[in-house]
């Protein structure tokens, strides 16, 4: 019987256009908010683990009221314990602040296993899993792409390819896309989720050590160029590396 905390973050739909207005990404223009995709794999893994060996799940999100949606969606899949952490004064929390308030809620949940995405689809940082693990004194396996509920091993990338690892609990596992098909809710689950209680907690996140300066749009792409002949290939590869920064 394992107690799992799943960290779910609400992010703009990954197909959404992101516009910077007045030095900040214009969140009010986002019409569709979703659970960060890697977090969905984490939740699916947690549901499978509990199905296989029993236990229970607490879904935890850090976000404003609209983030209740990710908890309701989790509830529709059968998660019964829902926690949202928020304080209306919070804006641009730094990594430490995020990790410390999450770690506090995880401790409160009694979880000895924490599942989350390898990074969120908005900040793309990948600090939360390992950082929370450090605060909890837990091990952390990152970028897990497969797991086995019965044998409790996790597949992570390695220089040679990948490797199956086991880990002592307490542990934090960060998931990348797994082979698992994400389950769909059903009407019964959706109706249950209506009744599910969200536990709203607030806490002292301390002061930020990072000065947020603003958002900018990525540099405009230079107009397309056409090169004659295969001799130009090295130049193009150089541009892909230095100008486009995609290689």
């Amino acid at each position, binding site marked *: 019987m394992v107690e799992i905390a799943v960290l779910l973050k609400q992010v703009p739909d990954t197909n959404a256009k992101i516009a910077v207005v007045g030095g900040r990404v214009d969140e009010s223009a986002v019409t569709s908010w979703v659970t960060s995709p890697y977090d969905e794999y984490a939740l699916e893994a947690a549901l499978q683990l509990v199905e296989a060996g029993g236990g229970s799940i607490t879904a935890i999100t850090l976000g404003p009221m609209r983030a209740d949606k990710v908890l309701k969606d989790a509830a529709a899949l059968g998660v019964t314990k829902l926690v949202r952490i928020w304080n209306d004064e919070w804006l641009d929390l730094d990594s430490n602040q995020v990790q410390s308030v999450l770690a506090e809620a995880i401790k409160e949940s009694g979880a000895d296993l924490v599942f989350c995405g390898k990074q969120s689809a908005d900040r793309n940082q990948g600090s939360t899993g390992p950082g929370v693990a450090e605060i909890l004194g837990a091990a952390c396996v990152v970028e897990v792409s497969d797991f086995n509920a019965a044998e409790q091993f996790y597949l992570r990338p390695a220089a040679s390819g990948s490797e199956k690892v086991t880990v002592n609990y307490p542990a934090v596992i960060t998931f990348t896309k797994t082979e698992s098909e994400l389950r769909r809710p059903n009407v019964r689950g959706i109706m249950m989720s209506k009744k599910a209680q969200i536990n709203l907690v607030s806490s002292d996140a301390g002061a930020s050590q*990072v000065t947020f300066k603003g958002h900018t749009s990525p540099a405009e792409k230079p107009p397309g160029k056409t090169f004659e002949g295969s001799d130009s290939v090295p130049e193009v590869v150089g541009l892909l590396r230095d100008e486009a920064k995609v290689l």
Partner: protein
Amino acid sequence: MEITIIAETQGNQLHAVTRQLVGAASSLGVSPTILCAGGVGADEASGISGVGKVLSVNGDCFSTFDGGAWATAFDAAAGEGVIMGAATAQGRDVVSRIAARRNIPVVQDVVTLSDGLNMTHPIYSGKAMQDVTISGSCGITLRANTFSPAGDGGSAESATVQQSGDVKIAVKEAIAKASERLDVSDADIIISGGRGMGNPENFDKLYSIAEGVGAAVGASRAAVDAWDPIPHSMQVGQTGKTVNPSLYIAVGISGAIQHLAGMRTSKYIVAINKDPEAPIFKVADYGIVSTWEEALPILASEIAKLQ
């Protein structure tokens, strides 16, 4: 300001990104200390120009990767100030744990860095950039291939320290890189072939380049329709998959509107086509007018050099 670099290694050597980390530190006027896990790459590191000191951090914990154990060992060996690593899976893990241990913030995947410390990192998968300033200590990871690498010619002093960390992860089985092919919908780089590839066997050339960079191989509908070995799951376009990678390389594809419908939002598009009038060049950021027979071997070797 003090900067401690966690060396990124590959096998028994330094990974190329380690020199880029040194280059970034040097651009701030700092001679960094490099920490080498288990001493791997220490000799090479001391020869990199601009390095202040190389510290081989030895300990049993380095036989398996365990971010927690490694962070414990590095934390004890590292100085104050900035802890810098590469924005790889391991680098992000270790640097964020050291930062959390020290109760200092961490910023990952930094692409510009200047005195202050001012830095920029992409958010929303590069659809926007975030600028932040940190005046105190912090952890930073840098995106590979965005900072100029430091050259040779250094002669930093080397020392060895013994550290330990509690290893909680055990490797049960190593699995060799499966030659499993990536799906176009999951890949950040896609190389697609069209009817101009001549026959399906020639797609092997695309596969071998793709494998090196973790790319997926896609196809135009003409290729899918003509050749059985090219399944519909590879088709990009209006009636195939809509893809949105950072880099899309179209080889022997004319650029019909239905094909463009599936890939025109790719961040960067490269076209290789022998016909200078092919419509694909209208959407390409970098167009190469050449046969693939001539261009692909060069592309393969140039990309291999980057790895």
